[in-house]
């Protein structure tokens, strides 16, 4: 059991022991990088095919089913198509910036994976300020989107880039505010320590952050903000096809387009991995009886579950209007995350020897967050007509 849990760690050490001492530290770094690129590159390929199939099912059609068994080789075909396509750069484009934009988007996102613990003893670097590092390297993506939109010298591109920047900046606030309760209550910015703080079982069920009132509210706030942050439906205004062609991607083709596509999915994977780490107990098993499962397996099951939710949401919810998008962030998500911060504080101080009953703690927290949710939700559409029941009398 323990061997299976640490199989990748042991494999790495065995490989390193075969090498001369001088290059071991360098090879260790390279191995970590290769592992991350291989795993999430594969995840990218698998997610594209699963997403297309899933969306197909939701929309009552088949989805890709021609290439390979059940269409599973579709990502290969897509890759070959993308890489052999002509790389078209508009005549009026700013060539250097146009060339750099996909790189500036994709490269920093790979860095974000380096602090995520994918299993027991399985994080590439153990940074003291891991959460901060994660958000810091994500900061470059706004710049990349702007570079892409501006350098294309195309009105649709620029409109798309401006939308994307406004959206990313607005939703970065609730995203970070939703993580703050987790940092406060685990007392660390280190992702390994945050996972450790969620260890242990009460009545056989894991003590994850999502099973506390602030964690429960925070998890959903975080997921909503993460959807917007990775420009996915229903927040996909930056590339709203029906309005502005493809937004900042309009003038990109071939390999550069593929890089943007990759960068977008990697951004989604990164925030998903972070949400698993922050709220779903990282690599801990959900039940005590399931503890025999390898830690990395638990992590990726949760990871896949959240990706499935993202696909489901994409197939279900229609796109927002731009003013709705901004109002939703500033008038709904941000106030709610602030209330959630207070809930976390109350939760923390009621545990300190006050001898309060668990259910009373839950009741107090719910009394804070639920009215806020109802109030801010109602305030979003003040002129909503009262529903008249014609046939339900």
């Amino acid at each position, binding site marked *: 059991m323990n061997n299976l849990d640490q199989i990748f760690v042991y494999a790495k050490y065995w490989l390193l022991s075969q090498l001369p001492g001088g290059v071991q530290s360098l090879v260790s770094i390279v191995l970590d990088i290769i592992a991350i690129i291989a795993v999430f590159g594969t995840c990218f390929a698998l997610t594209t095919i699963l997403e297309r199939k899933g969306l197909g099912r939701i929309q009552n059609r088949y989805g890709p089913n021609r290439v390979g068994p059940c269409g599973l080789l579709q990502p290969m075909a897509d890759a070959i198509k993308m890489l052999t396509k002509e790389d078209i750069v508009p005549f009026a484009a700013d060539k250097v910036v146009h060339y750099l934009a996909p790189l500036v988007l994709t490269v920093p996102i790979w860095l974000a994976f380096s602090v995520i613990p994918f299993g027991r003893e399985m994080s590439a670097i153990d940074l*003291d300020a891991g959460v901060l590092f994660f958000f*810091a390297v994500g900061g470059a993506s706004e710049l990349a989107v702007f570079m892409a939109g501006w350098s294309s010298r195309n009105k649709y591109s620029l409109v798309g880039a401006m939308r994307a920047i406004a959206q990313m900046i607005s939703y970065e606030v609730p995203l970070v505010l939703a993580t703050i309760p987790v940092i406060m209550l685990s007392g660390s910015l280190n992702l390994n320590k945050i996972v450790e703080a969620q260890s242990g079982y009460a009545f056989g069920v894991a003590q994850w952050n999502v099973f506390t009132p602030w964690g429960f509210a925070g998890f959903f706030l975080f997921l909503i903000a993460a959807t917007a942050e990775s420009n996915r439906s229903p927040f996909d205004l930056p590339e709203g096809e029906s309005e502005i062609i493809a937004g900042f991607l309009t003038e990109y083709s071939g390999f550069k387009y593929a890089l943007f596509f990759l960068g977008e999915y990697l951004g989604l994977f990164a925030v998903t991995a972070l949400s698993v780490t922050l709220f779903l107990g990282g690599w801990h098993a959900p039940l005590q009886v399931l503890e025999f499962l390898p830690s990395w397996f638990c992590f990726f099951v949760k990871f896949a579950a959240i990706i499935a939710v993202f696909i489901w949401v994409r197939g279900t919810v229609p796109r927002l209007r731009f003013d709705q998008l901004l109002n939703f962030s500033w008038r709904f998500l941000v106030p709610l995350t602030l209330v959630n911060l207070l809930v976390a504080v109350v939760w923390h101080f009621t545990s300190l020897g006050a001898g309060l009953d668990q259910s009373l703690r839950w009741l107090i927290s719910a009394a804070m967050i639920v009215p806020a949710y109802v109030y801010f939700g109602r305030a979003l559409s003040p002129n909503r007509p009262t529903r008249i029941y014609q046939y339900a009398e």
Partner: protein
Amino acid sequence: MPNNISFYIFAVGVLATATAAMRLRNPVHCALAAAAAFAGLAVIYFQLDAEFISFAQLLIYVGAISILVIFAVLLTRGSDIQPGVELASPHWLTGLAIAVLVAFVIAVPVCSSSFGEKIAPKMTVAPVKLIGEELMTRYLFPLETMGLLLTVALIGAAVIALREPEESEIRNPKSEIRKQPTTEELVAEVQP
């Protein structure tokens, strides 16, 4: 002093991008070069074991301030390239004098400090917790002052942005309603 090759690579990179930020003709290119210089500085901070400052630099300068600069450039219609316009001010003597003065101001404290005389003891990476505790106890007053300053700036920005409805109010029929004569005035008008 980090005596390794990567320090020199990034130092040269920062200097090159900083120079580019001043010398390039297109303001958007300048802003992007400045963002690259900020990122390079963050890497140098990281090499000096100043993790927290490095990430804060990335978050604030690359993630926020460079975007702000770009927005300012685009909104002021300054992104058009104007060929033939001399970028540097003709008063290069003034510029030189200012540069020498600034260099002097920086050089005096650097030379009077113990820099270069002895090698600083190897510092361990300051944990974020320690930084937070120091900010909340010893440096609480500067922190709160900065918070106040930022709040003032935020309110100021909101006030500037709010000016628009005032202008539209001039055209608004509401102001005309106020100008409508009262009944007494109407009566007075009718009476000879």
